[in-house]
């Protein structure tokens, strides 16, 4: 196993750990997991079958250090946005209903 340390912009919890794991796994094929401790994480890579390149390690560290959990979470809609979305859905339903009536 090869381990490198990353300094994070957030505190690691079970939830943010999972989000960070997915982000690093997306850029580093050798990445097998991480250990979080407050605002730092030890990124762990498999180097038994093949060794991760320095570029891969750098990309993994950068992805971890740039990552902010807020980016990964689905933002909650405001009341206006929700109403606009509802209106859009209603419009689509009306259009479909018109097509169905035309065909029947």
């Amino acid at each position, binding site marked *: 196993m090869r381990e490198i340390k990353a300094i994070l912009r957030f505190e690691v919890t*079970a939830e943010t*750990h*999972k989000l960070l794991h997915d982000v690093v796994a997306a850029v580093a094929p050798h990445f*097998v*997991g*991480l250990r979080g*401790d407050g*605002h730092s994480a030890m990124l*762990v890579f498999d180097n038994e079958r093949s060794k991760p390149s320095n570029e891969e390690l750098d990309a993994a560290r950068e992805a971890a250090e740039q990552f902010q959990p807020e980016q990964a979470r689905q933002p909650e809609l405001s009341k206006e946005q929700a109403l606009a979305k509802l209106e859009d859905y209603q419009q689509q339903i009306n259009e479909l209903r018109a097509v169905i009536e035309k065909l029947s």
Partner: protein
Amino acid sequence: MYFFIRLWRVARNLFPFWRLLFMAWTTPNSPSSGDDWTATMYRTYIRDNLNYLFSGRPIGQVHYVGAGDKTSSVATWADVDSTNIKVTLTISSGRARVFASFRGAADNTASSAAEFDLAVDGTRLGDSTHGLARTSQNTTHFFSIEALATGLSVGSHTFTIRFRNVTGGAVTTVSNNGFPVNLVVEEI
């Protein structure tokens, strides 16, 4: 010459003090029939060893509350915190009792299971695969785990708590943000 005699006398007078500071077990001699039992022998093999057994055996403990929880999504074992949650003792008897208590959890990832163990010098004391304790997917428990370390060489040894998740990518958490993690070790 006089100076060295004085130095020797001072050092000799301080000898009991140093023995109190660095008291350790001394393997008793095996006297043969007819051997004299001297005051020095009595002090070394009886008095000092009894004092060692009564109140001098090494004990160590840490009760640590950190700034953040300890998490792992790695399937291989590792120390929960090799800097702050460890006990180092000089063991003479070759044996130690190790105890730990903490709050641990496995997340809701499919097949997630958190496992915990105690270790001496990086060698785990529990089951070779699953350690001393395990909790299943999406559960949180307060754990008390204990093990006896035997066959230790005479000298310094470091005791730690280890953790892992059986499924890579699933998350094991040892709560430490507001939750104490306790590790107690005593020579037996």
